[in-house]
């Protein structure tokens, strides 16, 4: 049976569970970039990102027989990625991984967060580099919240599910991350 390229992620994953290798190709094409960048921005090392990326997908492949639709596929996939990343952090820096603390959240948030507007004709690449620098300066938890939203397309609830925290915690992390990024990008307004 040919794979329907327009099928939802969940249907594709169920198809792959039942033996449709083409369904996996579609799924992989949809999510490989987002997962890779999520890992790369968090570990900041290309070689390590490659290794973690492969592990994430291999974990998904090995777990295909037990897959059941309990949430959006992207939530499921990014949860695997997040867990693999945390395993790496714990293994290489034990005792210094704080997933639930609110470190770095006490920042001077603007009273009225405003969207920045890139100047017309401004160098888009410079803006992008500046944004990535701001993102890199965020605490890992806040950065993860931002990346999960922008790479995985997850909602606050799904971010909470993927990272194993409460909705309020996920919301707070995302709020602080967005505020810092906006504040940092004010110079480009």
């Amino acid at each position, binding site marked *: 049976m040919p794979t329907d390229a327009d099928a939802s992620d969940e249907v594709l994953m169920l198809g792959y569970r039942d033996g449709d290798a083409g369904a996996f190709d579609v799924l992989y094409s949809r999510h490989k970039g987002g997962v890779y960048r999520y890992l790369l921005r968090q570990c900041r090392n290309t070689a390590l990102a490659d290794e973690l990326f492969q592990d994430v997908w291999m974990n998904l492949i090995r777990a295909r027989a037990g897959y059941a639709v309990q949430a959006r596929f992207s939530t499921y996939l990014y949860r695997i990625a997040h867990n693999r990343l945390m395993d790496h952090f714990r293994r290489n820096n034990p005792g210094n991984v704080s997933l639930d603390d609110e470190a770095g959240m006490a920042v001077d948030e603007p009273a009225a967060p405003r969207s920045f507007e890139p100047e017309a004709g401004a160098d888009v690449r410079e803006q*992008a580099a500046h944004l990535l620098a701001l993102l890199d300066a965020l605490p890992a938890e806040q950065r993860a919240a931002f990346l999960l939203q922008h790479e995985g397309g997850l909602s606050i609830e799904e971010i909470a599910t993927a990272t194993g925290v409460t909705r309020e915690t996920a919301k707070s992390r995302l709020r602080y991350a967005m505020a810092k990024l906006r504040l940092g990008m004010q110079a480009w307004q």
Partner: protein
Amino acid sequence: MAVTPETEMERDPRLAAAYRAASGEEPPAQLDAAIRAAARREVDAGPARPSMARSRNWGVPLSLAAVVVLSVSVVLMMQQEGADRLESLTSPVPAKPRAADAGIGNDATRSQVVEEVLPQRAPAPAPAAVRVEPPKAVSEPAPPPAAKQRDAETGLRALESRVDPATSAAEADNKPDELKAKREREAPTAPAPSLLRSMPAPVAGESAAGAGRADRRAPSGVLADAPAKDALWRDLVDAPPEKWLQRIDELRRAGKVADAAAVVAEFRRRFPAEHLPEGLR
């Protein structure tokens, strides 16, 4: 469109556009190929294994059922073993073989198996046959009444110090004749010197001459227990050690060495602290 703070926080189109412009990284092509190939191999390997989620659904009830069955089995086994032990303790007859061991369940077949099994076992040996001589070796000729009274006075510990069962048994096995002769010599005599020291002070009946050496002399009661045939020293019962030494010397001079040795032995028992001249030894 009015934008609530939360919506604005959740989605900032301009920030998202800037991030998209910065997001061009992709995994290496060879990594893509490797992952796709692994996914295909997994599919080609065969149908998916049973779902772990499904196995978890019945895993917990199955575990609980297994625990219940095991618990009931253990309790039943303990009860059965307890009954068997009680039966074996209260009954003089050897305990019946357990039904579980014999692989049977009802009483009829169990009793049949008992009849079949028990004769095959070695019959329980009689206690007398099992014992290896110690009681016989320890047992001495019946002591005279005075000796019994002495034993009662000195207690069991003194008796054990006189006779070592192990050595006595060995001697009885190896040299029965010598032991018999030795016992015949020792039986009518007074207790060992250590026993004499532990005995009470001399009582009435001792002569005035011997009173001063009462600490070194045996009580007259012990002497009175001596058999009548020991006439060699009967007249010396209340005599001081010097008289005994004089008697020994007389016997030796008369050539009665055996009699002299018997008197010496009695002298040593009665006066363990007294010095025996070398010429009389």
